[in-house]
C-alpha cells in the first residue's frame, strides 16, 4: 500500500481524511486511482495529463519534477505528499484600491 497525505483544500473530496491509502505503479496511475476513490481528484491535481503547475508532489520527500514527473515509479510502502506551492507576485492598481478601502495601517518600527 502507498500512503498519500492529502492537503487541507482537497480534504473535502476525501471526507475530511488527511491521509488515504491506495496502490499504484506510477504517479500518473496514482492520480487515476485517487480519482476513482475520490471523484474530482484528477481534475484538482492535473490538467491535460500533467500535474498542475503550482502543485508539488513528493515521493518520500523527493519532488517528482526531479525524478520522472508523472512517470515517477511507486512501490509498496512509499509515502506521497501533495502540497500546494507557495508563490506570490507584484502589486497592482486592483490591490491598491482594496488596500485604500481597508483598515488603517499598522506600523511596527
Amino acid at each position: 500500500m502507498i500512503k498519500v497525505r492529502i492537503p487541507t483544500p482537497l480534504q473535502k473530496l476525501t471526507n475530511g481524511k488527511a491521509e488515504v491509502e491506495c496502490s499504484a505503479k506510477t504517479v500518473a496511475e496514482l492520480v487515476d486511482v485517487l480519482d476513482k476513490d475520490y471523484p474530482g481528484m484528477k481534475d484538482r491535481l492535473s490538467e491535460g495529463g500533467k500535474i498542475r503547475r503550482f502543485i508539488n508532489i513528493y515521493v518520500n520527500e523527493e519532488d517528482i519534477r526531479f525524478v520522472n514527473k508523472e512517470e515517477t515509479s511507486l512501490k509498496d510502502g512509499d509515502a506521497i505528499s501533495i502540497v500546494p506551492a507557495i508563490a506570490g507576485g507584484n502589486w497592482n492598481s486592483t490591490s491598491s484600491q482594496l488596500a485604500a478601502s481597508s483598515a488603517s495601517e499598522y506600523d511596527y518600527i
Partner: protein
Amino acid sequence: MLNIKRSDFEVILAHCRSGLPNEACGMLGGRNGSVEKVYPMRNAKPGPDYYEMDAEEQFRVMKDIRESGFELIGLFHSHPTGQAYPSSVDIAQAYWPGTELPNYPDAVYMIVSLMDRARPVARGFSIEEGRVQEVKLSVI
C-alpha cells in the same frame, strides 16, 4: 492576532532586506497564535515583484515545523516597492488552482513593505474562502 517576538521580527526584516531588490520569503512555525520559529527561505524565482518558494526547501521546512510540534502559523514575503497588502497575484496563489479553496487557511500571510527603506511596514492577512481579512500583528 499573531504574536511575534521582537527578535523574530528582526530576523524577518533582515531577511527581507537581504533579498533586495527582489522579494524575499519564508515560513513561520508556532502555535496558539504565537510565532515560535522563523524560517527565512530562498526565493527560487527571484524578481522585484515575484517570489516562489523552492519546492524541496518548502517540504523540508514543513516537515521541520511538524516535527518540532508546531503548526505552519504564517507565511511571510516582502514587497520591495509595494504596500503591505496582498497583491492580486498573492491572492490568486493562495487558492488551489482553478478553485476558491484556500491552500493554507490557518496561516497568516504576513507582508513586509520596504517601499520606504528606512521605515518598513508589516501587516498580516488571512486568506480564506473568497475573502481577505486583516490579522493584527503584535510584536512583543
